[in-house]
């Protein structure tokens, strides 16, 4: 870590600022979310204020600030998927599993996130679970998929 810090202190202001977004992305990939500690670490590394980093990070919907569940479910809400009924999936999660957008279930098994177009419109509506794509879903097949990941009995 000391090596990395000295590397960053040698960088000029432009390079440090330019590396903010790639570093946020990398941290998000390894930790699964952006914690306060990791943001603080980045702030010291890049000599920027934590506030400024939060300002940039919260601008992007792809960054989460709470840890994801064991199964991270992303529902594409792009136009093609919307017309195919994707908002219904979000509602299904809310009514049937009590899970809202951006939340993680109390047992840490499921987390839900509505995302912008994933570019798989030819297979709309699309749901992504831990990076694996499931295409041509409807509310019934979606809820079945969720049940297969986390059986309802365990919930209660």
């Amino acid at each position, binding site marked *: 870590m000391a090596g990395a810090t000295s590397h960053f202190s040698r960088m000029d202001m432009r390079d440090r600022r*330019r590396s903010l977004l790639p570093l946020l992305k990398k941290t998000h990939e390894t930790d699964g979310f952006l914690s306060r500690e990791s943001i603080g670490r980045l702030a010291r590394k890049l000599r*920027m204020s934590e506030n400024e980093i939060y300002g940039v990070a919260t*601008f992007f919907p792809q960054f989460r600030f709470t840890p994801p569940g064991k199964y991270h479910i992303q529902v594409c809400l792009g*136009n093609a998927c919307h017309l195919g009924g994707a908002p*219904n999936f979000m509602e299904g999660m809310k009514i049937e599993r009590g899970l809202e957008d951006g939340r993680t279930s109390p047992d840490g098994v499921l987390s839900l996130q509505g995302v912008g*177009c994933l*570019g798989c419109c*030819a297979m709309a509506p699309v749901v992504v679970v831990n990076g694996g*794509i499931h295409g041509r879903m*409807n509310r019934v097949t979606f809820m079945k998929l969720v049940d297969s990941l986390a059986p309802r009995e365990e919930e209660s």
Partner: protein
Amino acid sequence: MSAPRTKRNPARKRPPSSSKAQAPGPKTRILVCESTACLSSKSHEIREALEKEVSKLGLKDGIEVGFTGCHGFCQIGPIVAVEPDGILYCRVKPNDAKEIAASLSAGGRPVDRLFYRHPVTKEVVPRYEDIVFYKKQRRIILRNCGLINPEKIADYEERGGYRALRKAVTSMTPDQVVDEVKRAGLRGRGGAGFPTWSKWDICRRQPGGEKYVIANANESAPGAFMDRSLLEADPHTVIEGLALLGYAVGARQGYIYCRAEYSLAARRARVALEQAYGKKYLGRGVLGSGFDFDVEIFEGGGTFVSGEETALLSSLEGSRNMPRPRPPYPAVKGLWGKPTIIDNVKTLASVPSIIAEGAEWYASVGSGNGGSTGTTVFALTGKVANAGIAEVPLGTPLSTLIYEIGGGVPGKKGLKAVQTGGPSGGFLPGNKIEIPLDFDSLQEAGSIMGSSGIMVMDDDTCLVDAARTFLAFVQSESCGKCVACRVGTRHMLGLLDKIGSGKADEADLVRLEKLAVIVRDSSLCGLGKTAPIPVLTALKYFRSEFIAHVVDKRCPAAVCRDLITFRIIPDRCTGCQMCVKVCPTEAITGPRSQPHNLDQSKCVKCRSCYEVCKFDAVAGEAIIIVS
């Protein structure tokens, strides 16, 4: 109406220099599509299975199993092509590998059951070039997509790659490059359609040595995925175009700004960069000339506004992606205050062909109407038989794109509206479908070229709901810098909600229209300026549908939740209890084998019963939606 000068699949004919690589008795190649869409259907497993089967049959010397980027026809994926026969297999599964491999051994016959079948005429088409989806296209930007291995620079070079860059740095001055692009009449393919040469010329004239060039691949418009496909399938074209741009304006540093979610595209572009450096197409002294050029990949945030050029610059500088007022334009004062050119990857991918083949050749493609020369790529989605990406000359009628390439609207429903230009593009009604697709004609009709996404909607679509959806997207993507966009779009959304729930009156329609015009005219950047277009065109062409919502309080397409009810038709219901099981609120009751009851007071209109009845139930379609 320009007749496309399409002969038989010109994509494969161009460029001519590739012929020398066609040595006598070309090796048979099995090419598996490994783009994001096909990979999601496990196409890498197909390739592994094919490799295994081919070596099992002892054909390893005569047959090469390889992969390509996107063919554009994602609807029928995963795609496997067999060259040089030009056979295309669709919806292939790993266990089809055995049959495909066997078909290539001595005396084998192609696998008929995997051929493409026209969704409407049911005609079986074995060969790539005979499929209407490809036949009607003219591929310049996507000329190599699906034909080369994106991770092998030799494949690109074989098809004439880096010929243009060599020509430019060895025998042309930067002025001549700009002039060639000017005579070709190339306009920006990112949406605004600004003359490319003009931007380049302004930047070239700026004093000082520090300039930047950026390829914009921050494609975040829903329903558009051509930039990703291009970068995944043919990253070298973008790199070559960027190097040509750098040479023309005198920049030494280029960036490819790629959306963070497009990890495969970024990975392939990285591999391509390494190879290009290795072959001296990039770096110090490009191809032995005095031109130095470096390229770096920047993975930016996947927000819609980041594609706006000044917002993109903010993001490269490590700030929130917020646009800045223009002027000064980036060509004068861009990244770190230095002259910068930002071009869409499709614009850049057109440049190598222009330099290699000449401006006159490029200008002869397309209708030429108002400087609409060349081709552009459309992403065809929605209620269309053949969804995918298609490249056609500018000026091609919209109907050709939808009915010939797209194969028309599937099912029994009719075409209701077409939205061009992505989420902030306008809706065109069915009777406007002969409109030529070029910058000026679309603008005249009230729509835009935009992100070149084409969304086809059938009679089941409610335009109030559609306009609301698109506006909701743009509203949530608004960066919040200027009041018109931040507050205006929210109020517009509120009015559309009110209309959709049947609580609005006719004065609200007038209010909505007035507000839309204000947002359009007073927003800072392209996002706010185009956000009201869907609403304005929906009101212009589909006003009667809005009237039905506010006056009759009904939704003709039976979509808007507050205006519809679900009913069970007792005669059709067999009492299979499928709907009883899926209903989240226990609104449906009834014993097995007897028509069920739906308690309207408990129904939350989630559509679960409708979907399960339509697809899984014994009798089917016993549940209807009425307005």
